[in-house]
């Protein structure tokens, strides 16, 4: 194994997760996101969980979230925030840092 640039998905494969398959701890409202011009979430998520799909809409998957909270902090309030829910995963779920 040598050091090289790694895609976010590959980096995530190094981490220990217990993904909550039942409850999403972050939810977005795509109709609000569609009105957001800047879309800062595309740049600040350390694991690039916010992406633009073919239609130019925001797509998001909460699995792989490192629970940093940056997306919530930068989410623009254009009447309301596109991130309509941001809580920590239920107890024991989510990322489990072994080094931290």
């Amino acid at each position, binding site marked *: 194994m*040598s050091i090289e640039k790694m895609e976010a998905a590959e980096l995530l494969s190094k981490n220990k997760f217990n993904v909550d398959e039942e409850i999403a701890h972050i939810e977005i409202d795509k109709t609000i996101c569609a009105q957001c011009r800047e879309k800062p979430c595309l*740049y*600040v998520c*350390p694991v690039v969980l916010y992406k633009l799909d073919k239609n130019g809409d925001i797509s998001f998957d909460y699995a792989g979230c490192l629970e940093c909270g940056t997306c919530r902090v930068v989410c623009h309030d254009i009447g309301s925030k596109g991130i309509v829910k941001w809580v920590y995963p239920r107890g*024991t779920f989510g990322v*489990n840092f072994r080094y931290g």
Partner: protein
Amino acid sequence: MSEEAQFDAIIIGGGPAGAACAYTLAKAGKEVLVIERADTPGAKNVTGGRLYTYALEILEEGLSQEAALERKVTHEQIMMLSGDRSISVDYHNPAFNTAGQPPMSYTVLRAVFDEWLAGKAEEMGAMLVCGIMVDDLIEQDGKIVGVLAGEDEMYADIVIAADGVNSFMAQKAGLIADIKQETVGVGVKEVIELPADTIQQRFNIKEGEGAARMLLGCTEGIHGGGFLYTNKDSISLGAVFMPEGLADKKKSVHEMFQELKMHPSIYPLIEGGETVEYAAHLVSEAGFRGIPQKLYRDGFLMIGDAAGFVINTGYSIRGIDLAILSGIAAARAVIGAENAAAAGARYVTELENIKLLPIMKAVDGYFDLLETPFIYDKVPNLAIDVFDSLFTVHGDVPEKMSKNIMKLIKTNGLSIWQFIKLGIKGVRSI
């Protein structure tokens, strides 16, 4: 404790602030419950990082010498990067590590350290429950009396929020609003495994010794910087960026950090290693002025990152030590106060007594200095250009140094005037 209460104190969060608080309370015979949302304390936490030992020694003399720490920091380093060039400064003072005294600081991994410290609190008699997320506070007659976790209600004379930088508990208590983006940085870090002797060779250190390195000029002008810490058999390499800057420049934090790894002055340090974890966390950047106006209300205190206790001077970052201090201060307030209602005001006094607030106030001005945009790209580039002209020898007649520096200041889009203003700002603020 009051009739309804099951505990003298409930602490939300088993990080260093919560554990230090629980340790001190339990030692004084208080019934304490620590509720941690992760499977084990520390499993949600991230540091750069390092820990300054004095805080552990205040918690209990000798504690730093049995703590789960990595390497004592013997080399303080600053590295400026520009393009593929770099300047490194290495500061070594043996007095930071005098025989017979605890070394001044250690590199640290939080999943390991936090679990150890929470274990010490348990040994003292604190009760620790893991894997439980506190959903809400319970309020009665304007007083916080307990916490709600799923269906479970738990009551205590005082609830202490040690739930970190995204303190939802402090928000629910009405003491803070949601975080403003200009007050935080997003930090990312890879832990890269390497054999201990390889680390020692590459950093020119002995067994047990370590380096702490700050990196400037690796953020493409965005307010932020990088860091590198040597652990026992791994290297923590990371970077912190102001999220606003990333969004403005449309640069991905992930992409910028991956580029840093491959920098010709960084890569040889981690070459052949294996990434074993990729972590991220928010870090408060506002320092003293970011501390909430009120740190308590009836039945409720906030400590550690939840209260914004972080210092960033650009050359050193402190958080874990301040978290421990605030945990001790909160415990002392609870122990010394006649009742829970009196604990809040007393907590602020204890934060003064333990010197946390004076320390943070003394370095408050760094925030202004660090807001100067050109220190993140133009200044490192200029310094490197100057070094370049010093060390370049081709047999040409060199230009007069003073004239050359003036020229380089100009080509870097800077002016003498900006440096004078920065100097004045520096004198005023720090």
